[in-house]
């Protein structure tokens, strides 16, 4: 269900993004850092959904707050002639990997559980069959 929402959002976004007028190259670096921040927020949101502790307020404030903070840091860095945006990128990408790890672990565990269950069910079925066979044998006797 959540993946359908993400997919629809991505497709609509791509269509709109390709048809929007060009923005100036000056703002390109700010936009890039905002994208990284937003990406981090989205992954964080998905991870929290999986962990079942998703909070709408935290998600929205994180989504915009992180992006704006990243842009402000970049502007400050340009004014100070220090590449602060590198630090922001490092933090965001690191958190992205953490969240991705959480998502991955969840699905891997889910999948392995599924496999285990299936084998368990098979085994129990076989046992049942055997029992039935035994019963049948006994009856026959």
């Amino acid at each position, binding site marked *: *269900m959540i993946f359908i929402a*993400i997919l629809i*959002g991505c497709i609509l*976004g*791509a269509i709109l*993004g390709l048809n929007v007028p060009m923005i100036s*190259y000056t703002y390109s670096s700010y936009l890039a850092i905002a994208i990284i921040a*937003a990406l981090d927020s989205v992954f964080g949101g998905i991870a929290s*959904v999986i962990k079942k502790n*998703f909070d709408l307020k935290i998600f929205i404030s994180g989504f915009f707050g992180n992006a704006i903070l990243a842009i402000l840091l970049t502007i400050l860095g340009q004014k100070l002639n220090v590449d602060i945006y590198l630090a922001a990128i490092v933090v965001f990408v690191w958190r992205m990997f953490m969240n991705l790890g959480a998502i991955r672990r969840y699905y891997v565990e889910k999948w392995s559980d599924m496999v285990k269950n299936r084998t368990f069910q098979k085994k129990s079925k076989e046992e049942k069959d055997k029992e039935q066979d035994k019963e049948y044998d006994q009856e026959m006797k």
Partner: protein
Amino acid sequence: MKKGKITMIITIGIACFALVTVMMMQFKVVNETDITAIENMQETELKTELANWKTKYDEINAQYEEITQKIEEYKNDEKSNNEASKLVQEELEQTNTLLGLTDVHGEGIVITLKSGEDVTAISADDLLIMVNALKFAGAEAISINDERIINTTDIVDILDGSFIKINGQRILEPYVIKVIGNQSHMESAVTGNGGKVQELQTLGHTATIEKGDDIKIEKYNGEIETKYIE
């Protein structure tokens, strides 16, 4: 519980939508911007740079115009100076011509005088009277035996008329008097009744008059020195 889940899903969908929109915009910008051409410079930097160059250009242009104007002024000055010096030069030439410091030529007559054998030789006085008559008739340049007659010229007898000195130079017969001026006026000044040529001829001297359209008279060779004129 169900409602919360739907809100959550919609929120994440909208977030994804916004994210991908911005990403696509950024992709487009990065794709269409020639980054190497502007050599990593920000647009603002380039703008300020451009503005700087513009102001510099304006300043230099103003300077250039100023200098051009000055040059123009100097040229005008030079022109007027040139004109002035030209005028002065012309004046000088005219003065020199009048003073007899230049070679001149023009229409006029040549009078050749030779003393007769049995009579007293032609004296300086005769020459003086002749020159005076010619000047009276409007002669512009006179020379006797290529000695130019100028305002300081002396014509004197030396040793009781044994020879004549003009401009301090001893001259010998025949006396060739070259005159530039109106031919008929010159001629009539020395010929005719009472004319000096006529007189000399009657005294037994030889005197001939030739007319010429291009008589050349040389300049005064000496130096004009003044000691007492202040």
